[in-house]
């Protein structure tokens, strides 16, 4: 079974509103990310990708290349605001940076209120977000976001690199999730 098949198999039986932490290696992370977004878009009506790892344009190209329905995806780009002031598109918003947690939180709230049907949230990635935020502040932010997701019946995936997250922060985040999937 390939890593991607393993991911599909692990996610297949989960309820749609489940919140899952996916841990994978740096070598695999982008392939796993693409596979996860493909699964989520196939299963849901729409979703938000919060990307601290890759810029909007790069994600869009790769999503198209991997037959991901980009009409279902709204991308919150946390890294390329300064370079993309001129981009106007319906499915993207640029946030100043990954440490703008209040802006990110408010935008997620807006999204959860506005969008209807089966929705997902995808956070890419825990490690990158932690570079820009104090661990306790980030854990508090995640706790708040996951609580709101549960209230709104929205499922989601969080991506993290195996063994690259501080043990305590990892435990704090893992215990808030419904399942942890390891793709080595």
């Amino acid at each position, binding site marked *: 079974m390939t890593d991607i098949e393993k991911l599909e198999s692990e996610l297949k*039986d*989960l*309820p749609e509103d*489940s919140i899952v932490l996916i841990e994978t290696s740096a070598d695999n992370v982008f392939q796993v990310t693409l596979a996860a977004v493909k699964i989520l878009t196939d299963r849901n009506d729409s979703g938000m990708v919060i990307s601290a790892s890759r810029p909007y344009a790069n994600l869009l190209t790769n999503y198209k290349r991997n037959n991901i329905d980009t009409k279902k995806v709204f991308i919150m780009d946390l890294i390329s605001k300064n370079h993309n002031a001129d981009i106007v598109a319906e499915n993207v918003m640029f946030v100043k940076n990954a440490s703008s947690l209040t802006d990110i939180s408010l935008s997620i709230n807006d999204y959860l209120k506005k969008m209807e049907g089966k929705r997902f949230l995808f956070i890419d990635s825990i490690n990158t977000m932690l570079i820009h935020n104090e661990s*306790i502040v980030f*854990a*508090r932010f995640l*706790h708040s976001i996951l*609580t*709101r997701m*549960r*209230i709104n019946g929205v499922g989601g995936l969080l991506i993290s690199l195996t063994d690259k997250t501080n*043990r*305590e922060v*990892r*435990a*704090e985040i*893992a*215990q*808030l999730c*419904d*399942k*942890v999937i390891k793709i080595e």
Partner: protein
Amino acid sequence: MLKTDKYYGGSEAKNHLINDSFTNNICKNNRSGTFLLELPSDKYFVTSSASVKCLTEKGYKGVYVSFQRPFENIYNLFDKYEINNDNVVIIDCANSKEDFVNISSFDNDKLCKKIIDSLKGLKGEKKFVFIDSLTTIALYKKESEIKKLAKTLIELKNSKHFDNLLILFNVSEELSSKRFVKDISSYADAVINVLKPGVCT
């Protein structure tokens, strides 16, 4: 039910994950006591649910104080795990609109009063208070305040109102070495690792 079984390991939420230390020290005896429960972070909620299931099946009724998840999520999952929600009062501190129990702003005394009132509302002799979890509270509160809350709750079991009261503090096993958790564990009668057989100190 099948999907839930596959997902959370519904059979896990029945009792076989709960080890002898938990059942021998807590569930089987009609006793009062304070315990710190260590749970694996990767299977945290299914294990805490299994603990609640074990307690309710042994005739305990209690108050589940949730700082991690909102009420509906817990209620629905307990229902799926066949935990009788009539025997559990859930105090939602994760998303409460009432400031005095909301995790970001709760007042120790008012939360304790809410817990006491909820306990009094439950019929029966054997009762528990389940705090889930200490380290989640620590995201928002000073450790000194959490220790104060723990002490106030522990004093409850000496109250004339409650003969058989269990106070259960939950914590992820990976986080149990935190200083304030160690301090709280020193007030407890025992620290029980819910999954590892025989780990009870």
